[in-house]
């Protein structure tokens, strides 16, 4: 299963957990499975058209999925997926 690193503002959907293990063949499948086990989290990552929100970045390992196959990027068994929203405070 892949490991998803959950950023602080989304941990209210994961009972405070920093990491969640989820199986899925693509980033899309992983996000759908994540929504199934943690309802409400999907709409914080994807917009109403199902695209990754503008101010959110999704990485598989060190690679931004925009430079891979976006939501269709394949996910391997031991991949780490990071969700990184912009932090704009000061």
């Amino acid at each position, binding site marked *: 299963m892949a490991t998803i690193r959950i950023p*602080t503002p989304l941990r209210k959907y994961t009972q405070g957990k920093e990491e969640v293990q989820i199986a899925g063949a693509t980033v899309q499948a992983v996000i759908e499975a994540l929504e199934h086990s943690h309802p409400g989290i999907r709409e914080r990552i994807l917009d109403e058209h199902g695209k990754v929100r*503008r101010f959110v*970045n999704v990485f598989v390992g060190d690679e931004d999925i925009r430079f891979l196959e976006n939501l269709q990027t394949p996910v391997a068994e031991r991949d780490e997926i990071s969700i990184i929203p*912009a*932090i*704009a405070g000061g």
Partner: protein
Amino acid sequence: MSAGPGGHYLVLGAGGLGCPALLGLVSAGAAAITIVDHDVVDASNLQRQVLYTTADVGMAKVDAAKVRLRSRDPRLHVRALRLRLDATNLAPLLAEQPPGTIVLECSDAPDLKFMVNDTCLAGQLPLVVGGVQRWRGQVQAVQRGHACLRCMFEGPPPTELQEPCSLVGVMGAAAGLLGFWMAQLAVALHAGEPVAGTLWAIDTRTLLPQQMRPRPRPDCPACGAARST
């Protein structure tokens, strides 16, 4: 780090990130600093705005900061600009900076961070942009030819999804860590170190940094506009 002392730094915002960033720049041997902020010192955020004391409450932050920094280094040139930055005055302010100036974006305004990113790229001013909220933060050095803030995040979160610091708060030590980190990156840019294009994100409760180094986004409007100037 081979960074020699000297350099001129333009610090936008003298609050939670700006205070530690300014202290970091002074301790690194900055020669001159211009500080821009419109606000006055408020008792409610002294805990993270570590340059100020209760005696400064009500004073313009830029004036209080100038006094405090000059008391640490009497040779330091400090220019205090009490100014609320907006789309009209930002570009002229950046244009009047001496060559070699490094900009530090330390404000708490999401839209301003992206505006500063775009304007610095267009004006070829190296920039360090930071953000902090609750226990977590991000820092990134921005320089033409490398992924910028808008390559990384296309724009600020929409207003309804923004969590203002005044509501969710900022842990003082997180602001301190991120502010000094920004100063370190600014000094590295001044020394010509290849730090631009990397985003560091950290949650101070785990202290495990994430380091992301994406390629510049081909359709990034900020990088595109910068290339055509």
